């Protein structure tokens, strides 16, 4: 191994290493840029809002007046059951891995899988005239498995993003008829 060649090798190796590293840096930057632009990353405002709403949800659930037995505060369904105002079970979101209260799952998924409004507008909407009646068997709603007990409470919360739009657009399934 001759001296100059070794130096040359070292220099070349460093050059190529730098090359590889620069490429990877550009890749990472590009990926982060994409995530930022598509709103896929949970940025701080959203996290804070989700935390706040989660805390709210848990407080409602912990409230002693929310027993799951007979409760005059809440609507009774056709089987005579009352549901707690916010579904209490905690799941792990399969998309981002966070622990989310079931009652907060739908709005969370909205944000988690893509920016809320855009994601929901992809679902086809029938005419606004066809309201609750029409929505019973709607196969289209993306949230059917999730939103079981949340809808009425979305209304009472006045959270506009979920309750208002869906009711006025009509294809959102009837909350209590969902099986």
């Amino acid at each position, binding site marked *: 191994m001759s001296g100059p060649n070794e130096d040359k090798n070292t220099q070349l190796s460093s050059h190529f290493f730098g090359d590889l590293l620069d490429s990877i840096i550009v890749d990472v930057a590009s990926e*982060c840029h994409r995530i930022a632009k598509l709103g896929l990353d949970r940025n701080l405002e959203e996290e804070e809002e989700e935390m706040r709403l989660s805390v709210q949800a848990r407080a409602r659930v912990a409230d002693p007046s929310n027993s799951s037995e007979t409760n005059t505060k809440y609507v009774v369904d056709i089987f005579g059951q009352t549901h707690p105002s916010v579904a209490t079970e905690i799941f792990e979101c399969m998309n981002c891995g966070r622990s989310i209260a079931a009652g907060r799952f739908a709005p969370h998924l909205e944000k988690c899988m893509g920016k809320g409004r855009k994601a929901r507008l992809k679902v086809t909407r029938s005419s606004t005239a066809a309201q609750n009646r029409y929505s019973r068997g709607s196969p289209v709603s993306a949230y059917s498995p999730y939103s079981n007990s949340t809808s009425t409470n979305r209304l009472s919360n006045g959270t506009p993003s979920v309750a208002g739009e869906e009711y006025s657009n009509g294809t959102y399934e009837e909350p209590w008829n969902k099986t």
Partner: protein
Amino acid sequence: MTRKHSVNRPPTPDGAEDQGNEPILQEIINIKLIESGEKERLMEMLRERLIECGWKDEMKALCRAYVKKKGRNNVTVDDLVHLITPKGRASVPDSVKAELLQRIRSFLTSAAL
């Protein structure tokens, strides 16, 4: 380290005379790296190591913080590249760097020179 700075040497067509034939050598090696598939392998290896050691997460965190500060619609890829390049280059773990350099060297000695 330009060693072929000969005055008598005729000018090369692409005007690279002041750098000697180093860029050309680099080019040749680069081509060999690519053609043999070694460059791809090295890239994947480096990527993997950088993920394992948390380097990528650090870079992503830097990017996220920047995006949060600037607002996501005001950020360009270029901004992010300039943001993470200095830190990125400096924070590669020595072991990772050594491993890659070693691998590149073996390639150089076996294939090029």
